[in-house]
Each structure stands twice: as C-alpha cells, then as structure tokens.
C-alpha cells in the first residue's frame, strides 16, 4: 500500500518534470524550443513560429502564442516587420526592444512566468543568445460589450455594468475615480487557473491593515481554479458558517466606486462581472444605488418600505400560521369567520399548507431561473395555475394562504441584493416550523436567535450591524433612512487607526 502511494507520487512528479516550471530560459534557442514544444504538446491552438531577422537574416528568433488570444495583425505590423528592418550589428537586447513598436514589453526568464504570459494572450518572443524572453502586450480577447447590469437594475443611474474582462472592469473604475491614489493590486490565485485577482482601494482612505488582511486571506486560498468571485467570497469571509453574506458583491461600477470612496476595499477577479466590497455591513444589502440618486425624501420612503417588507419576507407566513393557529383572538371577527369558512374544506393543517405553498413557490422561482429564456413564460403560466386558481378550487389551500404566499414573494423580491434575499428565503422555513409549535413565541425566539447571530457577526473586523449597533450617530442616517447627502459629511470608521474623518467639500 505504501509502495503504491510512493509510486503515484513519483509518477506525478515525473509528469510535472516535462513542464520545467522553475527552469530559467537558457541562451540556446533550441533548448527553449524543445521545452516549449514538450510543454505545449497536444495543444492544437499553440502557434510556434521560428524566424530569422537582422542583416543576412542570421539572428534566429522564436515567437510563440495561443491562436485566438492575440492580435495577429499587430504582430505582423509591429513585431515581424520591425525586426526585419534591424541591422546586423544591432541585435543586442536594447536595440531589439527599441525596434519593437509595442508599448508593453516585459522581460521574463522563468518558464512558469512564460506560460503565464502565453495564457494571458501575450505573444512571447525568444531570441537566440539572449537568456530571456520578451512578452509582448498584444493580446486581444473576445469580450462581452459593457452593458446594463442584469441583477441590480435601476431606473435612474448609470447603466454600465461590469463584464468578464478584468481590464475593462478596471478601466470602468478608473473612469470614475480619476486619481493616482486609486490603487489596483494584483494577486494570482488558483494552481491551474492562475486567475488574476485585483484588490482595489484608495490610498489614504482605506486602512492599510485592512488591505494587508485581505491579501493575507486571499493568499491562503488553496484551490485549483477560481472562476467566480463567489468562490473567493466564501473562503475569505469571517463567519463561514453563517447564512448571511458578510461580503457585498455588486455588478455596478457606481456602487463599487461609492464603496471605495467610503474607505472600503474592493476585489475584482478576471472572468467574473461580480466585484466584492469589504468590509460590508448589514444595511448595504438592503439599499439600492438608486436610493442615492433619487433625492433623500423618496430614498428614505423607499428604504422604510423595503425594511418593513423585509420583515414580511422573513415572518409573513409564520405570522399567518401563528395568528390562525394560536392567537385567533387577534383577527377581527369578520375576517376570522371568512378564514374559517375558506379553511373548512382544506385537508391540511395550516402549517403544512404554508410550507407546501412556500416550497412550491420556491421551486417555481428556481425553475424559472434555470429554464432557457424561450421557455420561461411557460413556467409562469403553469405557476399561476398551480399556486393560484386550481389549488384553491381543488381545496388544496385556502385563498388567504395564496395571498400570504404572494405577498411574501413580492416582499422577498424587494430585497435589492440577491444573496441577502436567498438568506431571508432560507430562514423563513425554520421559523415557520418553530411557529407551528409555539405560535408567536416561536417567532420571537427565532428573531432573538437571528438577532444575537447578526450582532455577533463581523465583516473584516467591522460589526455587521454597525451604524445602529454599536450606534454611530454619523453613519446612522444612512441605514434605515437615507439622510440628505450634505449631512453625510463624516466618513465611516471601520478598523485600524487610519480614519480620514471629514469628507472634503472642495
């Protein structure tokens, strides 16, 4: 058994050998070509072009790139043609670099770095007698156009959303924060995916210890591949066992930049349009960027509406169960009479009815999400029939239950952040169960438990419920209400010693 293990280890080791990850580039071109051909064997998309240049065409060179990731026209124009014009004497490194009319040239000398450059779409140029390679910034990826964010929609506000390309995303941020103080640090994550992850913050506003902590946590991630910021989020957040998201994700550059200006840090990863913002607090998940664009009176009214419907989304069905099975005296007599009449034919206890309807609704929602777009409307028609008219006529559920489920559904869609609304949906079920056993007392104990949990959560050292508990006067006007912008003149303080308190006017 031990032998077998050892053998496997060796085998793996020998397999890694052919890639020569840690080898340096030698000055013999043939060696490099051998290594590259070995490494990129069985890869149909690799292009290895050897050519000669200089006077008498004596200098040998090798250009290697992945087809489809580079701009072939520009290679032809700025690399091949330029090199052909070089004189014989001038084949030292400096003159070659000068000759190449490419803005971004990086000298690389380790093979792992070369592989990385090739994967990033940079054609790599090897020249005989030189113990290094030149990576040329001539990549051209197929990317999606910058378009409207699909998960966080607004009526008033910018319509741009992040896309999958990191370069486009950072440019969207740079476009909004035009200062060199905006820092964009890069870390490579993932053993095989080698995904660039970028930490973005504003120097002088964001506490350096926070950035350090983020870098530390990201570096600790040990995974083969990272394809979405959600995968990073799950591994770096504080309370990993909590149903509540403690890192805010957004698709909107304006929310992202707004958070940076407050002194938070952001994380962007290549290949995902979702950026992470941290530290993030509870109330961020229940505010929409539009709150800040539509005037503080309207913003406040909408926020209050949203918070009150948050309670309905969380407790609506449980309240119905509690009131109709434990505290019937609370219902006005005429309403109780009509509930009793409609419930007379229903075969299930109220709690079963509630859970049945809620689960059905969640299933419909999930089905509607996963379906191809063309079949989407079919689900809504079936859904309307299933949890609507037919269920009532078949006396499976009472009409009031349908109303309750519908209101709860609307309320849960009012939560602007998708992760948060999922949490609320999930928590609803244990509360219904507890309520079916203890009535309002069950609701209260669930609320207490959730409250203790929320109060104990922290996001990168910042209490989750921050501006309200612990209470901070300056921040509290941007929580349940949205105060006037000119009153929000104190920047929130998160952790560490750096606190640029005043938001300067000029």
């Amino acid at each position, binding site marked *: 058994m031990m032998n077998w293990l050892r053998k496997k280890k060796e085998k793996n080791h020998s397999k890694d050998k052919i890639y020569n990850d840690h080898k340096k580039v030698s000055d013999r071109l043939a060696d490099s070509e051998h290594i590259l051909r070995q490494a990129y064997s069985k890869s149909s998309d690799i292009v290895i072009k050897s050519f000669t240049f200089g006077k008498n065409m004596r200098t040998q060179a090798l250009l290697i790139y992945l087809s489809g990731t580079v701009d072939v026209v520009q290679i032809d124009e700025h690399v091949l043609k330029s090199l052909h014009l070089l004189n014989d004497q001038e084949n030292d490194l400096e003159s070659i670099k000068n000759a190449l009319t490419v803005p971004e040239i990086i000298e690389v000398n380790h093979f792992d770095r070369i592989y990385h450059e090739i994967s990033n779409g940079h054609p790599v140029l090897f020249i005989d007698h030189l113990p290094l390679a030149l990576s040329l910034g001539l990549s051209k990826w197929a990317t999606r156009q910058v378009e409207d964010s699909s998960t966080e929609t607004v009526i008033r506000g910018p319509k741009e959303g992040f896309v999958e390309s990191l370069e486009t995303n950072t440019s969207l941020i740079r476009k909004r924060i035009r200062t060199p103080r905006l820092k964009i640090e890069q870390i490579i994550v993932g053993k095989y995916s080698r995904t660039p992850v970028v930490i973005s913050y504003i120097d002088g506003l964001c506490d350096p210890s926070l950035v350090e902590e983020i870098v530390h946590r990201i570096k600790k991630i040990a995974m083969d591949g990272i394809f979405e910021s959600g995968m990073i989020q799950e591994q770096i957040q504080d309370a990993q066992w909590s149903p509540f998201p403690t890192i805010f994700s957004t698709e909107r550059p304006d929310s992202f930049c707004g958070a940076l200006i407050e002194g938070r840090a952001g994380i962007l990863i290549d290949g995902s349009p979702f950026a992470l913002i941290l530290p993030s607090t509870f109330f961020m998940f229940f505010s929409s960027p539009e709150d800040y664009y539509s005037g503080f009176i309207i913003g406040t009214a909408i926020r209050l509406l949203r918070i009150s419907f948050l309670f309905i989304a969380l407790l609506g069905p449980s309240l119905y169960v*509690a*009131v109709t099975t*434990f*505290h019937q*005296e*609370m219902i*006005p*007599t*005429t309403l109780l009479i009509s509930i009793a009449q409609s419930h007379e034919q229903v075969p299930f206890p109220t709690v079963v009815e509630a859970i049945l309807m809620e689960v059905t609704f969640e299933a419909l929602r999930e089905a509607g999400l996963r379906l191809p777009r063309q079949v989407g409307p079919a689900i809504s028609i079936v859904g309307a029939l299933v949890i609507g008219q037919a269920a009532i006529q078949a006396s499976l559920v009472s009409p009031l239950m349908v109303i309750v489920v519908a209101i709860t559904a609307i309320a849960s869609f009012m939560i602007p952040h998708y992760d948060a609304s999922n949490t609320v949906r999930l928590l609803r079920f244990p509360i219904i169960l507890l309520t079916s056993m*203890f*009535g*309002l*007392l069950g*609701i*209260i*104990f669930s*609320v*207490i*438990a959730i*409250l*203790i949990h929320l*109060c*104990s959560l922290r996001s990168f050292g910042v*209490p989750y*419920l921050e501006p*309200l*508990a*612990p*209470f901070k006067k300056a921040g509290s006007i941007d929580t349940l209400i949205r105060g006037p912008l000119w009153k929000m003149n104190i920047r929130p303080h998160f952790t560490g010693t750096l606190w640029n308190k005043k938001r300067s006017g000029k």
Partner: protein
Amino acid sequence: MMPKKEVVSTFQMHLLLYIGIISTGILTLPAPLYYYAQQNMWLSLFIGSIAGYVIILINVFFYKTFPRKNITEITTQLLGKFFGRLILLIMIALLIFQAVYTIKEYQIYLSVGFYQFTSPFVIIGFMMLVCAYASKKGIEVIGRSAQIILPFMLLFYLSVSLLITPEVSLSNMLPVLEKGVMPPIKGAILVAAWFSEFFWISFCLTSLTGPPKKILKHGFLSVFLTTLSLLVFFVIDICVLGNYTGQTLYPTHLVERYIQIGTFIERVSAFFMSVWVLGVFIKLAFLCFVIIQSSSQLFHISNYRYLIIPIIMMIFFLSLSLFNSTQSLLVIGFPLLIIACQIGNVFIPITLFFIALLKVKMGKQQL
C-alpha cells in the same frame, strides 16, 4: 490566541438595565405596589428611584477608585480572601435567585395568559437556550441586541400608551396622600428593589469604557428614564382600572387587552407579550452573563464560557422546581425577591462602599 477584550459603551450598559427594569416593572410591579400605596404609587416610584441614583453613585465610586476591576476582585481585595469569597458566593446566590424569579415571572405570565397547555419545561427551556447563546457571544453582543430591540420596544409601548388614552380618566389619581406618607414609603421598598438592579453594572466594570463622568451621566439619565417610563404605565393602570388595579395579577396586561381602535386594532395582547419577551430576554441574558462571569472569576476559571452550560442548567432546573404556581410565586417568591434585591443589590454594596471609603481615608488603599 486570546480572545479580544469585549467592551461595551456606558450607554449600552445602562440601556440593558433600562430595558430589563421596565420590562418586568410594568407588568408585575403595579399590582403589589397598589396594595401598599394605592393611587399614590407614583410617589413610591419617585422615592424608590433614589435607590437607583445611590447605586449609580456607588458604581461610579468603584469604577473610579478601582480601575480595571470588577466587584468580584474589589470584594476580595477589601475583605480578604476568605470573607471576600464568602460574600461573593452570597451575592452570586442572590443573583441566581433573581434570575430564577424573573424566569418564573416570565413563564407564569405566558402560561396564565397565552400558553395554558404548553409545559413550562419548553417555555423556560427556550428562554434558557437563547440566554446561553447570548452569554456565549458575550456582553458586547447582548449590548448590541439591546440597541436594536430598544426602538421597537419603545415604539410599541408608546403606541400602547397612546391608544389607551380614550379610556383614561385622570380623576382616579386623586386623592393624594389621604393615609399619610407611610403607604408610599412602604411601596418605595418594592420599587427600590427594582431600581437596585442597577448594581449589576458593577459586575461588568472591566467591560466598560469611557470616563467615570460618563457613567454618572448615563446612569442618572437611565434611572430617570426608567422612572418616567414606569410612571407612564403606572398612571395608565390607575387611570383605566381605578381600584381594580390591585385585584388583578397583571394590570398592564389587562389595560393593553382593552385597547380598541376601530375594529382592526384590538386584542393586541399577543404582540404585547412578544415585545415584553424581547425585554425579558435582554434582562435575563445580561443577568446570566453576570452570574457566569462572576462565578468564573470566583472559581478562577480562565474562560467563562466553560461555565455557561453548568450554570444555565442549574438555573433551568431550579426554575423548573421552584414556585410552581402563581400563588407560591406571589406569596413566597415576591417577598423573597424583595429581600434578595435589598440585601444583594443594596445592603452589601453600601457596606462595601463604606469599607472601601474607610480604607481609602486611612490611606491603606493604594489607588
């Protein structure tokens, strides 16, 4: 890694007590108080609240004279190892009794008013469960929960007191002092027991931050607000129920049941119960934390969290076995509670205060 030191602001700390005192105060205090002071019970309230101010002063004195020390350490320092520990043991036992009484108060109110058939085992068990959870998370979390609960609670109590105004007849407040000043003073002893709970702060002095002046300010403010909040409910009880106040177990419960605005806001008592339970939770969670933390200091246990389960279990089984009827709770439990509060929260602290003062005056005490 040592856990980070937990701190609460003086505001949060006094908030905990404010919520705790008014929660139990509005429900169970009016009936026995009416027995002693009749419609003059508001006067008892003012006289009794003096105890609160005195205890805040004692808290500030301890905080100032013994910086970074809890009452547990102060006691052993003042009285020596043996006597200090003995007194501490008595104090903790009295705190446990107060916790048990509060739980029984809560359970009997729920059993009588709402959950006739649900076993006390479950009603108490759930409360103990959330209290254990809260104590595990520490004083910081309890303080923050109180901050979140406060606006909901105040809003609800305020609307209850506003909605009942059509039924209020202020003439019930007369006559004033028809039987002399003795009845209100007798009543003040009961009220003082409630206000004496402010002494619990002394068990958490190390968690407090801020200058002593702030404790004084927030302390006096919270005593005053407690008086005011209780006053509102006492006045409402008398003005709605008149002489009947003394003949029912929970006058405030009866008053709140009587609310009717139109035909849709009526019988809000289940909501009242829910909000009341929130307040009692804050009180009990804080009390359990205090008991657990001081016991861990008494027995020199490095992490107080090890004691959560044994102590919570002990309180749980004690409250299941003691005072199993309304009668025993009222006839035996209530006087015992008053005595426990007066000894544990008033008599011992004042004695400690004078001993400390003496030692400071004689210069024996290093400041």
